[in-house]
């Protein structure tokens, strides 16, 4: 069936996204990895919707709306950080650490 390959691909994409978030330093790349994880989840929703009803497909639209909003806010934050620090590397963003 088509179900297993779709779930496998989404699992691979999600893992790639998690790995990117965990190990990359560039904020834009991390941002893109987050998008990758969201779309992996979307693929899962769509794949399961074939057998479990239309609810999954509807939810994909909600996720895409939230992702768009997230893109707007996230890119603005990164731009603001760049103006402040002349860099988008996460290593420079450690204000929460004492000392």
């Amino acid at each position, binding site marked *: 069936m088509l179900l297993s390959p779709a779930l496998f691909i989404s699992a691979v994409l999600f893992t790639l996204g998690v790995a990117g*978030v*965990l*190990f990359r330093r560039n904020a834009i790349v*991390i941002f893109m990895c987050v998008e990758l994880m969201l779309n992996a989840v979307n693929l899962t929703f769509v794949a399961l919707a074939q057998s479990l009803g239309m609810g999954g497909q509807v939810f994909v639209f909600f996720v895409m709306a939230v992702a768009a909003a997230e893109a707007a806010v996230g890119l603005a934050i990164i731009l603001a950080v760049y103006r402040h620090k002349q860099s988008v590397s*996460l290593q420079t963003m*450690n*204000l*929460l*650490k004492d000392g």
Partner: protein
Amino acid sequence: MTGTAVDLIWLPPALALLGFVLNGTLALTRPTAKTLVSVIGAGVLLAAFAASIAVFSAFVGLHADEPVVLRYWSWIPVGTLQGDVALQVDQLSLVMLLVVTGVGSLIHLFSIGYMKEDPGYARYFAYLNLFVFFMLVLVLGASFPVMFVGWEGVGLCSYLLIGFWYNDAANATAGRKAFIMNRIGDFGFMVAMFMIFWSTGSLDFGTVFTHAPNALAAGGRTVTVITLFLFLGCTGKSAQIPLYTWLPDAMAGPTPVSALIHAATMVTAGVYLVARCNLLFAMAPVSSAVVAGVGALTALFAATIALKQWDIKKVLAYSTISQLGYMFLGVGTGAISAGMFHLITHAFFKALLFLGSGSVIHALSGEQDMRKMGALWAKIPTTAKTFLAGTLAIAGIPPLAGFFSKDEILGKTFEHSPGLWLIGFITAGLTALYMFRLVFMTFFGRSRVDHEVEHHIHESPKTMTVPLMILAVLSVIGGWIGWPAALGGSNRFEHFLEPVVAARSSENSWSAHGAAVASHSAETEYGLMLASVLIALVGIWLAYQLYIKNPATPGKLAASWPWLYRIVYRKYYVDEIYDAMFVNRAKDLGTALGVFDARIVDRLGVDGTGWLTRFTSDVSIWWDKWIVDGLVNFAGRVVQIASYPVRMLQTGLFSSYALLIVLGVIILLGYYGHRVMQLLR
């Protein structure tokens, strides 16, 4: 309220107070406005004198035997003590009122000329007006407390005016001495007041004198103690033994002040007080005897000192003490009107003599030593003639004022006690001797004036000589108000005072010892008069022999008895004895207290407390630093060490947090996945 001019009795003191306020303001704001100050200073006194005459004539018109008491407002309403501010008008207070305002006016006029060049002109007149205010409160007050206010007030003004030229330490010291000596007397006055209130329940003159015969046993201990304490007050204010030593020093003040305060008015307050309380003194024969004895002794004692003084004002000061002694001799023997009569005539001629001496001092550019005077008769004729009139009056030459008053006192004393009469009689001769010594040394003989001073000798201006002339006239005719019956007169003064003196003693069953003695015959009276005139003439003759005819004799006499000379010259060492007995002992006490203060209070008390405070604070610091702070730091350190592993987790790096989240999710998923698998199996 009587509806007559007597109601205006508040006016004289109010005017004097107004003068003080205005002149005091000028002294503070415009001390150079001398014309205005003169007009106010002398003007209020003349107005007060005019008001006094109006009150006097109105009162005489009333023919009142009882005093008129005018109450103004309640002052000390405490339980049974109801002290009102009230003025009393009767024959006695009216006599004093006229003397104070009349003689006071003349002295104010004299001061305009005498003090013209003084930078403290406005201040001087302010004090002088204030003095008159308090003096009027003293003589017009209708109760002991009101009188006491005046009594203290005149003491204050006396102090202020003795130390008027306060730049010289000696003057300030003299002022202090007068004040302190007066305080000793005031203590007596106050104790007497307390005892009067305690025994009669009131302090108003009227109530006290009405209740006294019932409340107090005549001749008893209480009334004797009361009157003795009253007399202690008198000895302070009126400069009698033993408190007289301040008066000669008081001559440090300006001469018109000596005339007004230390001759004519304030020092006679004691005589007035005895006269006012004559009822109490009549009830206490012992006290009366003390008054008369002290008066006689003071009269003689001061007269002998006056013989050897070189300062013209000091002679007059001792003369004043001596004459005040006469007055006390009079009131002490029950001859109240005679004492008051001498008070009036003395006010005239002693004010004249003081002002005259002021005029002499003025002419000699401030010289007061009689050894540097002489032959001034022709150079300052008005002063010299008026001065001679005053001297004849005080010496008791008929028909001048002093003759009548002194003779009346001596006559009354002779009835009572020939011994006291003898003292007074000798004093009369000494009076003539020292006064004519003064006149001869000042106005006659050879001139001993310094050359540079001699060029500047000038007669005083009109504002000074006119008061002198008026007082000279009063010194001549002032005694005629008491022309004795033996010489064909009617002694109007004695009859005038009868309501306040005789009526009281007759309305009570107690008969005054003075009145109990039968009146002596006319022959005795003539004899006494002749004797006192003769001894006065002897005194004058002696003075002439010693100081005009043979000026070398006094020096020879002094050389013959050097110890006597020295004792008299040093005023019997009374000042030295007082210094040794009281003043230096008080200083010793002060020194001892100072040592106590430095050693015990400062060293042990203050320094010890400081050391103790520092020691306890050191202990406290140690405790704070090692125990309190140590515990706090220990707690902090424990938290710091314990929190080390937690802190290591907080890297601040996003990646590490994200890794932890993912790990957590995997662990949770693995756990629940495992559980689900188990359930499904």
